[in-house]
């Protein structure tokens, strides 16, 4: 793979995505900042690192690569990436979760160009991705199917049905990326149901190739994606990305309470400042969009 952007450029894009993520959640008054921020760097690497071949002008071209956001609650950062990629106008981000908006609280293929599967109910994405990988063979195409999972949704039995079945059907081009921030709604994953661990051993035992990385280190992410793209032509690949929930906004980082709530005005301003937005820009944004 030839990344189309340098690591510095990817970092800058990730900062922009984080800003848009928090802005849209703040204006919506609800949403899931923690898991949106933990998957941001991976999303940016996929879409701007040269791994996902998509045409925003023709979002459902048969030979496009597929990205299934199985952790559908990470919609805000996913939408921000799609907007920066050119699927729709950035202004739409500020309609997130509002009546009539194409940007639903959890991603919906019916509403938003660039979305491959309607998710939000956890644990279903990997089966969908597997179905798409099987279709690839029938259609004689060579697209990749990337499936982004949360660690919490590994608790869903259906995920394991798909893990087991992928190898049986010898699915090609299937790459699962687990956003392992170790936090779910109630508490840390290790406290709620630690049974998902050890993640790599379980995937390996089911015939998958596994890679473990720091999900915020672009050089590691890019290297892992290079390897995954290559090996996925032989067997399905799972990348366990160890991440920090709420990454980039320090008061949110590694804090279960920020799984699913929007910041108030004060906390919003604090987040913007930390993400490098100037006082003037914050003021302009709030004047234009805030209720």
């Amino acid at each position, binding site marked *: 793979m030839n990344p189309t952007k340098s690591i510095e450029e990817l970092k800058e894009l990730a900062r922009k995505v984080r800003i848009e993520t928090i802005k849209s959640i703040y204006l919506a008054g609800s949403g899931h900042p923690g898991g949106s921020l933990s998957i941001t760097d991976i999303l940016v690497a996929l879409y701007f690192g040269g791994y996902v071949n998509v045409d925003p002008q023709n979002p459902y071209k048969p030979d496009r690569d597929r990205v299934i956001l199985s952790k559908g609650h990470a919609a805000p950062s996913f939408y921000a990436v799609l907007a920066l990629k050119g699927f729709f106008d950035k202004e739409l981000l500020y309609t997130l979760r509002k009546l009539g908006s194409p940007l639903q609280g959890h991603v919906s293929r019916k509403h938003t160009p660039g979305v491959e*599967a309607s998710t939000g109910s956890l644990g279903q994405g990997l*089966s969908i991705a*597997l179905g*798409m990988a*099987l*279709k690839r063979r029938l259609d004689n195409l060579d697209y990749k199917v990337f499936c982004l999972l949360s660690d919490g949704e590994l608790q869903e039995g*259906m995920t394991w*049905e798909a893990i087991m*079945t992928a190898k049986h059907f010898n699915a090609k081009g299937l790459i699962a990326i687990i956003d392992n921030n170790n936090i779910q709604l109630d508490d840390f994953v290790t406290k709620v149901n630690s049974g998902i661990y050890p993640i790599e051993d379980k995937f390996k035992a089911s015939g998958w190739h596994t890679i473990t990385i720091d999900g915020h280190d672009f050089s590691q992410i890019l290297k892992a994606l290079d390897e995954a793209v290559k090996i996925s032509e032989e067997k399905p690949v799972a990348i366990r990305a160890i991440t920090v929930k709420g990454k980039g906004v320090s008061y949110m980082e590694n804090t279960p309470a920020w799984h699913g709530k929007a910041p108030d005005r004060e906390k919003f301003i604090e987040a913007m400042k930390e993400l490098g937005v100037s006082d003037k820009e914050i003021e302009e944004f709030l004047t234009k969009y805030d209720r």
Partner: protein
Amino acid sequence: MFLYTKDAPKGDLRKTYGETLIELGRKDPKLCVVDGDLSTSTKTAMFGKEFPERFFNVGIDEQNLIGIASGLAYDKDRTVFASSFAMFLTGRPWEIIRQHVGYNDLPVKLVATHAGITVGPDGASHQMNEDIAIMRAIPNMKVIVPADNHILKKILYKAYETPGAFYIRLSREKFPVVYPEDVEFELGRGFILKEGKDITIVAIGLMVSHALDAASILKENYGIDAEVIDPVSVKPIDGELIAQSAQKTGKVVTIEEHSIIGGLGDAVISALAEKYPVLVKKIGIPDTYGESGTAIELLRKFELMPEQLAGNIYKWLNSSK
């Protein structure tokens, strides 16, 4: 127009399903079939034998079954037939059906076999009496219940030609042939199988032939002239046809091999309430579970045999005068 007689030959719905899948598979090289380790019973194995590359037996994991079928169908350029027993095709993965097949109106045609109590000796765990209720609650889902193998074939072609989600309910038992081979099926259009003036009987599936037999008994024993309607499609339902009949007869009975909660009876009542409210008696499986027994024994236990139906309808007519 209708073939049915008391001694009508029986037709194998599952075999018709398997044969029609092969016809459709030959016609459309993109058509796929997904099953969950019941393909020799549902007869999708017949398709699998001819088109192994387009047949996916995913094993005993029905949530994954629906997920894979949806993944194959999301681009809407492939029609996917997905099959298992009614209990496991609709009950186990209901929410996945709702989230993908229903919400996105995917071209996934869910064809369940072994519905109702006539699955028999396997007992309550396998006797799906709630599938119509839970499937008709899903927006976009069409719910169709064939009365015989001839109309089933037309239903399968219609489901194939019509975009979007379908649920088609078959049973393990062979059904008496009701319709001629060249019967025409239109979505949401029912049939008056016997005209009458005293009461309207609306029935689906195996209960269509039982209703026709019950109508004969009502005539012979009690002099009651019943009109018999097969709506075929429970959703959308032919409310117009049923309301017109109710206007003529003034009373309606519904008969289904399904719970009286949420099935045909409730669909008919909803349609009538808006168009022409009359008294309605729902006959079906009461709010309970089945048990092991032969199909006939269970039909008798739940008073779904023709002579029992006729007697109970007569009693109701008298008590509700």
